[in-house]
């Protein structure tokens, strides 16, 4: 029976983790950062194909829009939350990166058949994904 | 009585020893009628219901006993009572 309190705490932590608490721990921040990276890296692949005219206009437009939404969702989550003590600087970094990735992808979304825009976006996203 | 009422009833001997439940009803199918021959009594309810004791199943097992209907003294909603000497084994 001694284990019961421990179990309860573990359970509560799990529930809290699922419920999306408004305080970002280091781990949670790391997760959000990985999501931004993922959107940027995928956007880079897409932009590179647009720049070389290896895709279709609808696909480039719709998919860049979806990726921009992913980055925007991260930005919103990070903006609305407080960072755990000592993590405020990291929180801002993630927020800035997410916002920039979203902007770059929005640019591609707005001009999905412009090869020059695509080249610029690709370079920007490569930098942001690094 | 309906089959669904008979299946699941308690089975005991006249002297009051509990034998289990009615799992199924064995019958003889002729071109004209279906005559009840006996009841299958056992304790492993769920497995029997799944047909593990079916006469021709690969998984046939002997968790249930066939009591001939002639051994039944009384069968109503309160349960089935069989003669003492019908007790299996």
């Amino acid at each position, binding site marked *: 029976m001694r284990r019961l309190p421990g179990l309860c705490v573990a359970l509560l932590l799990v529930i809290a983790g699922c419920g999306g608490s408004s305080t970002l721990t280091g781990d949670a921040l790391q997760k959000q950062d990985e999501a931004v990276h993922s959107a940027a890296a995928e956007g880079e692949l897409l932009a590179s194909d647009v720049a070389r005219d290896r895709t279709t206009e609808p696909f480039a437009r719709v998919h860049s829009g979806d990726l921009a939404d992913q980055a925007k969702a991260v930005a919103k989550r990070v903006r609305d939350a407080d960072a755990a003590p000592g993590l405020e600087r990291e929180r801002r970094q993630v927020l800035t990166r997410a916002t920039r990735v979203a902007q770059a992808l929005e640019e591609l979304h707005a001009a999905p058949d412009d090869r020059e825009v695509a080249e610029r976006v690709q370079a920007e996203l490569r930098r942001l994904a690094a | 009585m309906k089959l669904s009422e008979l299946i699941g009833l308690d089975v005991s001997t006249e002297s009051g020893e509990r034998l289990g439940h009615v799992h199924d009803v064995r019958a003889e199918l002729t071109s004209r009628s279906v005559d009840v021959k006996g009841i299958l009594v056992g304790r492993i309810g769920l497995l029997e219901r799944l047909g593990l004791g079916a006469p021709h199943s690969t998984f046939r097992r002997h968790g249930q006993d066939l009591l001939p*209907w002639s051994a039944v003294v009384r069968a109503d909603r309160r349960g089935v009572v069989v003669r003492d000497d019908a007790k299996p084994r």
Partner: protein
Amino acid sequence: MTEIDLGLSLLDHQLIDSEDLRCGKVDDLDLGSLREDPPTVQAILAGTPAWRNRGRIGRLAASLGGGRIVRIPWEDVESVESAVHLKKAAHELGLARGEDRVRRFVAWIPGAK
């Protein structure tokens, strides 16, 4: 002449009418009086209210559904295989009501006939 277990080989099996249409399940069996020697299957019972004795879930399902019990005397049974084949057509036995009620709605869709 074959030995069968009623719960396993009849109960819950498919009913098929003389026109080869599926028309319900064996929801229960009427064994008549158990004082007969031997008792015999008097009739097949089909229809929502017959689920009443099929455990707690059956009782709940029966109370939610409407309809009536259809009694099919054993004389109307042609043969027992994997399904139970009947000697008469579903509508003669009163087993076609459920399908008939819905048929009206389907019939007006182009290409339904």
